[in-house]
């Protein structure tokens, strides 16, 4: 075989290899919905907006109904046991149905400047991910926070924090960047935990490398709103029931 033939074979192999890499590159799943025609995209956005608007109305209704129930129970104090009413108030407070105020910390998170969640070309490292928020909430819990909220959504033990498409849901409610995580508790302790260089190291590296916004502010006053969603108890029962 002559050198010319060999070179030709090498060229062919290289061409095929490059082709394979091209194909692999463009078949890589980008974790954002973006390959839809414009009309489908607009229809999707409108549908989502309708659901979100409806959700806002329903959550307000729930908050109002909870308030009315509390007020009505107070009016019934003459016929209901004060001890039981007080016990119920405590239980509701523990379940997250009251506003919590006090000292605490504010964690601000935002995508890299210029990063567009709807863009196909955006790299995941430049965006705040649901997992980042989960890790911070976990850390705030280990720091014995009294209450936590994310963009006004009260976080309970049963609160999922998930990614859907390019969006983040807390309590299955859409939250959009920038993300504001508030925690009531010992603000200095929480601050030290969050600042610990061995913790949240990946997020801190992305903040450094990709200009992801990650800022902490000690607060003398935080206001964590009451939970305004539903409590799922379809499958849970007590042994005697």
């Amino acid at each position: 075989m002559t050198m010319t033939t060999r070179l030709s074979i090498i060229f062919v192999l290289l061409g095929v290899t490059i082709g394979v890499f091209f194909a692999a590159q463009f078949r890589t799943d980008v974790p954002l919905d973006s390959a839809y025609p414009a009309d489908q995209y607009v229809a999707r956005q409108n549908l989502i907006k309708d659901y979100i608007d409806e959700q806002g109305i329903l959550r307000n209704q729930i908050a109002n109904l909870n308030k009315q129930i509390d007020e009505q129970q107070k009016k019934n104090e003459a016929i209901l046991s004060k001890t039981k009413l007080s016990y119920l108030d405590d239980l509701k407070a523990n379940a997250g149905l009251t506003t919590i105020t006090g000292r605490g910390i504010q964690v601000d998170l935002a995508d890299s400047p210029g990063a567009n969640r709807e863009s196909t070309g955006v790299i995941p490292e430049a965006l705040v991910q649901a997992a980042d928020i989960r890790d911070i909430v976990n850390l705030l819990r280990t720091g014995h926070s009294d209450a936590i909220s994310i963009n006004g959504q009260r976080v309970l033990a049963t609160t999922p924090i998930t990614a859907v498409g390019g969006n983040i849901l807390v309590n299955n409610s859409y939250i959009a960047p920038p993300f504001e995580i508030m925690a009531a508790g010992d603000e200095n302790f929480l601050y030290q935990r969050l600042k610990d260089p061995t913790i949240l190291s990946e997020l801190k590296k992305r903040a450094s490398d990709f200009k992801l916004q990650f800022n902490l502010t000690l607060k003398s006053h935080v206001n964590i709103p009451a939970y305004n969603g539903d409590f799922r108890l379809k499958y849970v029962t007590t042994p005697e029931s």
Partner: protein
Amino acid sequence: MLQLPNLNPLNTERRRAIFITSFILGVFVVVQSRSFDGLTQISTRDSASNTFREIQVLRDTNRNLQGETVNLQDLLDKTKDSSSSLKVLEQEIKKFEVINGNQKIKGPGIIVRVPDHTELASLIDLVNELLNTGAEAVSVNGVRLIGNSFGFDAIPNGQVLMNGTILEPPYTFSAIGDSTVLENSLRQAGGIVQRYERKHQGKTLKIEKKDRIDIDKVQ
């Protein structure tokens, strides 16, 4: 015997072409590799999702919220009625005792076992996945997750601390909810089982459906 190529201009052009082609190939290898690295580190901690799933989540959430408004309106009406207000109060107390972990609870569900020491992110993500797929109550190694009292913390010897309790592997997650939905969600393509196994070669999450799971009240 191998013939040496002639050093004529045509061969020089070929060498240059090979060099450029190889260079481009190298760039693609790096770009492709980095692309997967990024996805592995961050994005793969959540399930791949699509528009259908997005709409489904919103629709189900709104349906649940609507159900809650109906329940609360009914509760308000009964609270206003003096003949039923005491009974309603007691029902409310029991409901919130269940929610807050003051009562022992039971129900159908699944048990998920994480076989070995694992990084905190996997534990955090697994709890989140269970809640996201409809678990109404979750416990880890018998400790129910309630309020903000829990959080997974790494301690120096590789153990996991949760609310003052050291958790030893295997980590056993008990989740009460629709066992079929819970299991299917975890096992779906791109779900947490697949992601866990991809990340931890040779290890797997063991899932067991149960007609009855008992979770103790919080001590």
